[in-house]
C-alpha cells in the first residue's frame, strides 16, 4: 500500500529507533524476545511482570503520574519513556498479559501504544478476547523474527501519529479557535502520507495485508502457528485513536 511505501522510505531515511517494552515472567523467554527485538532493530526493555511494566510506563497502582487532565490528546506525556510497542506473555502470575492489556487500554496516556500478546497455547477464545480488548496482534510462541517485522508498520504509525499530534497541538495559523479549524490544514498532510483521521478505515488495511501474509506462511509451514481465529479480526473493533483530536484544542 501507499502507506507502507511511504513508511519504508521514511524508515530508510531516518532509521527511527522503536522502543519496545517486553514483558514475560520466564527468563528464558525474555532472553529470546530480547534478541529477536534487537535483531529487528528495536531498542528493548524487558521486565518480568505486568506490575513492573506499568511502573516503567509511569502508571503506578492505576494512578497516572503525569496525566494532567482527562482530555489530554498526547499519548506520550512522560517524555523520557517513549514506548512504541508493548509485547507481553499471556500467562503470568499475578497480573496476566490480558490484565496488563486492559490497564494500558484504560489509561488515557498510554492507550494508543499498540499491545501484542504472546502465548504458547492456541486457545481461540483467549485470542478473540485479547483482540476485542484492543490487542494489536496475538502471537503463538515460539515467536519468530518474521512476526516482529510485521509489527513495524504498526509501530511506525504510532510514532508518526505522536509526531502529528505534537504538530497539531502547536499553536498554528488559524482564524477561528475551533478544533476543526486547527485540524483542517493538517489533514491534507496526513492524507498525503496515507494516514486518515477516520481510525477504523486505516486500522483495517494493515490487518488485511497481515491476513494474506499469514495465509501464505501457513502454506509453507506444516504446523499451524499464527492466530487460528482469523475470523476474529472483526472490523468493528473500536479503538479510538484520533478521538482526542476532535475534542481538544
Amino acid at each position, binding site marked *: 500500500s501507499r502507506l507502507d511505501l511511504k513508511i519504508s522510505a521514511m524508515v530508510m531515511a531516518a532509521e527511527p529507533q522503536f522502543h519496545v517494552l517486553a514483558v514475560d515472567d*520466564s*527468563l*528464558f*523467554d525474555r*532472553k*529470546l524476545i530480547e*534478541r*529477536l527485538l*534487537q*535483531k529487528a532493530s528495536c531498542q528493548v526493555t524487558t521486565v518480568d511482570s505486568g506490575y513492573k511494566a506499568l511502573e516503567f510506563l509511569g502508571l503506578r497502582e492505576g494512578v497516572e503520574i503525569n496525566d494532567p487532565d482527562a482530555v489530554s490528546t498526547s499519548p506520550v506525556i512522560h517524555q523520557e519513556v517513549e514506548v512504541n510497542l508493548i509485547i507481553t506473555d499471556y500467562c503470568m502470575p499475578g497480573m496476566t498479559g490480558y490484565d496488563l492489556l486492559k490497564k494500558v487500554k484504560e489509561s488515557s496516556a498510554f492507550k494508543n501504544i499498540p499491545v501484542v500478546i504472546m502465548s*504458547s497455547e492456541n486457545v481461540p477464545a483467549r485470542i478473540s478476547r485479547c483482540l476485542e480488548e484492543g490487542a494489536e496482534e496475538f502471537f503463538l*510462541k*515460539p515467536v*519468530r*523474527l518474521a512476526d516482529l517485522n510485521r509489527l513495524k508498520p504498526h509501530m511506525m504509525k504510532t510514532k508518526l501519529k505522536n509526531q502529528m499530534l505534537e504538530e497539531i497541538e502547536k499553536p498554528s495559523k488559524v482564524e477561528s479557535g475551533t478544533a476543526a479549524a486547527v485540524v483542517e490544514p493538517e489533514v491534507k498532510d496526513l492524507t498525503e502520507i496515507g494516514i486518515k483521521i477516520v481510525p477504523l478505515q486505516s486500522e483495517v488495511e494493515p490487518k488485511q495485508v497481515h491476513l494474506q501474509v499469514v495465509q501464505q506462511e501457513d502454506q509453507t509451514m506444516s504446523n499451524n502457528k499464527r492466530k487460528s481465529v482469523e475470523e476474529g479480526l472483526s472490523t468493528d473493533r473500536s479503538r479510538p485513536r484520533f478521538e482526542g483530536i476532535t475534542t481538544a484544542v
Partner: protein
Amino acid sequence: MDAHVAQLQMQYRNYILSLYQQGFLDDQFTELKSLQDDGTPDFVAEVLSLFFDDCVKLVGNMARALDQTGTVDFSQVGANVHQLKGSSSSVGAKRVKGLCINFKELCEAKNYEGCVRCLQQVDIEYKTLKAKLQDMFNLEKQIVQAGGIVPQVDIN
C-alpha cells in the same frame, strides 16, 4: 584452505545434518542460529544453557510431584510439563517437545505409571540432546582453533 580445517568443517556439517535428520532438532533451532551474529556470538550457547537449567529444575519438580506416597497432584506435574513443552519448543528440541505432548495427555488422564515412564524418557532425552549439542560446540571450537570458520549449514 587447510585440509584439516576442511575435514573438520565437513564433519561439522554432517553432524548438524544428522541431528536434524534424526529428529533431535527442528527449524526453530535454525531460527535461533540465525539470530546469532558477530555481535552476539554466544547467544545460542546461552539460550541452550538456560534451557538445560530449566530441564533440570522441571524434571526435578516432576519427580518430586510423582514421588508422593499419598495422592499425586497431576495438575502440578502438568504445569511443569507445560513449561518444559514451551521452552523445548522455543529452542527447537524436537524430541523433548514431542515427549512433552504425550506427557501432557498422560497427566490429564491421571495415568501414574505412564507419567513415571514418560518422565524417565524425558530425562534421558534431554541429557542425550545436551551431550550431542556439546559435541557440536566442541567441533565448532576445533574449527576455530584450527584457523577456520564455522560453516553455515543449510538444512534442506
